[in-house]
């Protein structure tokens, strides 16, 4: 038994969720990967350039798949909570590294 039927009607809330908390989540994930791989802020290094590609890849995954949330509110909630957790992890790792 299906709980809900997917529709393209609520696209706006889902897309804004992918753009706002989705974006924060993306940079959080990139930050965690960057800290774990000891990347620095010099854009000329290979690690910084790999992280740039990773950011783009994550955008291009989150944006088309955000429609798979059942509704906009869920998309906002899930992506916001994930973003918070990931950023929390980022700051913890950063503090440990320092």
């Amino acid at each position, binding site marked *: 038994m299906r709980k809900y039927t997917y529709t393209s009607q609520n696209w706006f809330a889902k897309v804004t969720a992918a753009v706002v908390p989705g974006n924060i989540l993306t940079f959080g994930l990139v930050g965690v990967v960057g800290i774990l791989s000891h990347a620095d*802020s010099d854009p000329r290094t290979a690690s910084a350039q790999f992280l*740039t590609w990773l950011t783009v890849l994550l955008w*291009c995954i989150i944006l088309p798949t955000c429609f798979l949330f059942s509704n906009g509110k869920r998309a906002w909630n899930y992506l916001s909570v994930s973003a918070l957790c990931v950023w929390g992890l980022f700051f913890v790792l950063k503090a440990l590294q320092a």
Partner: protein
Amino acid sequence: MKIRTDIVQMYRDIHSWVGILAGLFLFVAFYAGGISVFEVPLQNWLTKPAALPAPVSVQQMPDLMQKAFAAYPEAQQEYTVVLSPTVSLPARLMWPVQAGQRHAGPVDMIAASLDAKGYLVTVKHKPSEVAHFIDELHENVGLPVFMPYSRWFMGIIALLYAIALVSGVIVFLPMLAKNLFALRLVKGAWKKWLDIHNLLGVFSLPFHVVIALSSVLFAYHGVIHNVQAMMFSAPAAIHNHHSHAEKVEHQPIAQSFPPTLAPEEIVRALQKQAPGFVPDVLNYAAADKAKQTLYVIGHDEHYMMRGPAGGLAQLDPVSGKILSTEYMPGLQSAPFSILTTFFALHFGSFGGNAVKFGYLILGLVGAFLFYSGNRLWLISRYRKEQKNGATEPGKGTKFLTRLTYGSIFGCVSGISVLISTALLTPYLGSYLSVSLLYYAVFCICLGVSFVVPDTMRVRVLGMCAVMTTLAIPLIYVCKSLVS
């Protein structure tokens, strides 16, 4: 493969709306991009040859440089030594009229050569703007807006394109087995265009994935780097060549530049360190009063190359030692080779002309994919309207039909008119005149599309595009017969 029908329906809606929003911009990006693969040959073809004696031999270059710098001391600020002269770079030694410009397109240069008696001859030279304009059209998805807003807009289009790719695949997956090789050309317009769209889309999917990702990167890499700079600590170790450069700075400062190696010796030194690398151009610039930098642009067909023009190496102009190999084909570290692969897959800068022709075809097929998508959208929208009892297309359908044909044929005609005009007359000198001509043709086609009756539209605009495009070889043949 089974996917829930409501998910497929949702992605079908998304695919068609995203497609209609981005399709026309993507058409221009792919059509102009396909042509831009051959930007350098196109520029050489359309540039008026400079009135200069033949380029001097490599052995004569120190003599030429000495005479040129004696007559034009300011040229030492920034100059280019051309190892393989072309129509666009007609002399062994060239320097910009205004030093220090950071401009992506052609700039006014002074080209220097020696006549038969050994006297210095200089001439002002600027390569054709047309090839560069077509490349800009590609980068700005056809919009006449200027950086950085056009890049942001291009990025949004590229993200919509990514959504269209994913949604298109999800829509097509359930009917993959049945429809992969289907091409029902006689079963009505809708099936014909659907099959063409699916066939082209599925078989060029890997190319489209690469292009979508790299285009988003080109649009937003600056923003991403800024965020990274806030997130990560400052670099701990500075690059080798930077520390080297600093050492040079602390040495006793000479009044003028230390004597640099002759171009011939630079080439020899380079060959010793990187045997497969073929240098094309040596770019010298004054970093400060006592120091010069030397960047060598060259190619190595055996490797992927970072930019459309090839790879890049920084050399010490005094000793000829390679200072950085990050962007140098063949000598890059493994991580930089992987990064270079991503870029080379966008530019088609590997494997020589065969790959370039492949990229031209992929670009044109990509443009046709968006044309077929728009056509499909218009047909299915009209079908829906007919089902609801309408006898003729609604206002929105009519508007989008006119816009689609007008801008697609306008783009093709505009580019063709630019190339034919550049072949006919040398007066297409400035970027502004090139842009005005293109957008005039584009707007005329768009206007015609809105004015002519429905039955005539494709015929009139199609004829215009075909005729302007056929004019290019015709003018070329006539010109070579006359001269």
